[in-house]
């Protein structure tokens, strides 16, 4: 019978107290792994949101603000970009393509974005992936709309349905553009980015529904959908635009040129750099969570130490018996370390199981509310490292009772006073 088998049977004998310890370890492992997973996935989804875009341009504001409203549809623009400025930049020879973005309206909680068909051609996310349509086609008519995957799914829209856009980002009835409904002509595939939660229309569509609006309210005149089409629907301004350059080496040059524009105060940002900066501002929160989880682990290990120490007295007899049949003093240490190893391994296995269980439950909720996809992937090297650290920490902790038992077994010898 090997020492491991003895440790196993001994652990089974004390299962009630050890099971609680296993649970404590499992919870700390789940927390540590969970925080790590969330950190990675949120970083991933953040950096996956936009790719292949060299510059994002908007009215002068902080880079983070520009990034948040243009890409993540969070917050609002401080000011608009005039159509003339947009056109003058778009026509520069360094510029390969532009995607205009016009924000400000919403549909039942989802942001409406006016853009051009260049959006379908040039927008990239993740690893330079283009947008693809799950069904239908691109918008063509002024009153066409293409929905993000989540919009269609959550609101149950299909091709051919009509939707009404609200003015502003609230659902206040009085400001609904209910006289000019849009027809769903296409639905995007899921991207895992804010695109999924956006209602896309043409710039002309945005212009048309605002033709009888001025300064955020209705003018006295009311024009119906067909009448609006008689007007020139070229916008006077847009919210922001994305720029792809012919040559990426010119990025900084073009950026400086836009930032120095005399006619209109503008900001051009590098999405990657701004994302990194944004990530740096929020990552201390994640690090704090990680540290807290670390403390939970320490508490768990201390609990385990208490449990093992409390069993040492009753084990004095056991140890004397083992010593009598020839176990060396170091076998006594090994026995306790082995038992700890069993407990902590069971704890880690249970912890991983709990992590996947929780992820399976939370995945749809987190994806809907935060746009972060908690896909059940294999444990990566960091996570295996975390588990390794948990096991190593436990073994280190177990050396304390191991050493106490060792010293006692030397002192007690074989004949134990009972």
């Amino acid at each position, binding site marked *: 019978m090997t020492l491991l088998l003895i440790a196993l*049977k001994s652990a089974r*004998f004390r299962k009630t107290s050890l099971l609680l310890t296993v649970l404590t370890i499992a919870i700390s492992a789940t927390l540590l792994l969970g925080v790590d997973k969330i950190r990675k996935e949120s970083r991933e989804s953040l950096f996956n949101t936009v790719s292949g875009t060299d510059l994002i341009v908007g009215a002068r504001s902080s880079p983070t603000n520009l990034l948040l409203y243009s890409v993540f549809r969070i917050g609002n623009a401080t000011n608009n970009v005039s159509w003339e400025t947009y056109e003058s930049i778009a026509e520069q020879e360094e510029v390969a393509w532009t995607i205009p973005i016009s924000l400000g309206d919403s549909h039942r909680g989802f942001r409406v974005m006016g853009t051009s068909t260049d959006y379908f051609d040039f927008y990239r996310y993740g690893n330079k992936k283009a947008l693809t349509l799950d069904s239908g086609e691109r918008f063509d008519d002024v009153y066409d709309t293409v929905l993000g995957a989540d919009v269609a799914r959550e609101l149950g829209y299909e091709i051919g349905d009509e939707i009404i856009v609200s003015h502003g980002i609230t659902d206040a009835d009085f400001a609904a553009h209910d006289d000019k409904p849009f027809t769903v002509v296409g639905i995007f595939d899921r991207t895992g980015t804010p695109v999924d939660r956006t209602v896309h229309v043409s710039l002309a569509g945005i212009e048309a529904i605002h033709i009888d609006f001025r300064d955020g309210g209705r003018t006295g005149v009311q024009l119906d959908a067909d009448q609006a089409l008689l007007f020139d629907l070229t916008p006077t301004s847009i919210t922001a635009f994305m720029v792809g350059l012919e040559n990426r080496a010119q990025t900084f040059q073009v950026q400086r040129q836009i930032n120095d524009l005399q006619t209109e105060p503008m900001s051009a940002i590098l999405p990657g750099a701004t994302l990194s900066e944004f990530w740096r501002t929020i990552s201390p929160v994640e690090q704090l969570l990680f540290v807290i989880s670390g403390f939970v682990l320490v508490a768990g290990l201390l609990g385990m130490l208490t449990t093992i120490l409390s069993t040492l007295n009753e084990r004095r007899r056991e140890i004397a*018996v083992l010593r009598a049949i*020839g176990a*060396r003093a170091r076998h006594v240490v090994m026995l306790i370390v082995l038992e700890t190893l069993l407990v902590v391994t069971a704890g880690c296995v249970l912890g991983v199981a709990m992590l996947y269980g929780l992820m399976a439950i939370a995945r749809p909720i987190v994806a809907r509310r935060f746009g972060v996809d908690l896909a059940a992937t294999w444990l990566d090297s960091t996570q295996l490292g975390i588990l390794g650290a948990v096991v190593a920490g436990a073994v280190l902790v177990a050396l304390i009772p191991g050493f106490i038992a060792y010293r006692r077994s030397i002192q007690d*010898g074989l*004949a134990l006073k009972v």
Partner: protein
Amino acid sequence: MTSERREVVGLEGVRFRWPGRAEDTVSIDELHLDAGEHLFVRGSSGSGKTTLLNLLCGVHTPSSGTIRLLGTDLSTLSAGRRDQFRADHVGVVFQQFNLLPYLSTLENVTLACSFSGRKTSNAGESAQSGDVKASARQLLESLNLSPELHRAPVNKLSVGQQQRVAVARALIGGPEILIADEPTSALDADNRDRFMDLLFRETEAKGCTLIFVSHDPQLAERFERTIELDPIVDESEGAA
């Protein structure tokens, strides 16, 4: 395996003193035991018999003098070697609590082989089917423990049965020396006599040298040799 007149245990000028004590806890000028001899060590509590046991088992080393087991001077061995020597050549039976509560009766017996390759191969040879378990079963049965008890958890056994299991464990693998520390003190008179009968029968059958420690003078009659440990003034010995 018993050669006549072979010295199994030899003590010469053995002194043991706990650090900081004025008196020797154990003081034995000379003691020799041959193979198959049965020695009764009589001593009341505080007479240093516990320490003597630890010395004989190689757990403690004497302050001076030599302890020879089977011709090996224990002081020439490292602590780990002494543990291995004990595993291979010595069986121990305590007063009580000899068994691990989470192992079955049979597992408690075969446990003695887990630290000793010698006992494992000896036990294998002694049994017809050639494995340690068969040898353990034979021993248990010869100690009047019926097969249905072999798989039972040890806390289902009576104290008398438990002590016999302890003897089986001490004897498996044919150790040359059996050391018993008050093994009958928890037994009533009937059980005690039966236990002693079995213990003698088995040790004689195996030619095992028995060192039996007890404070009970009644038991001494059964032994051919008796030594007396002098009570020592130092009554704090037990706490050490």
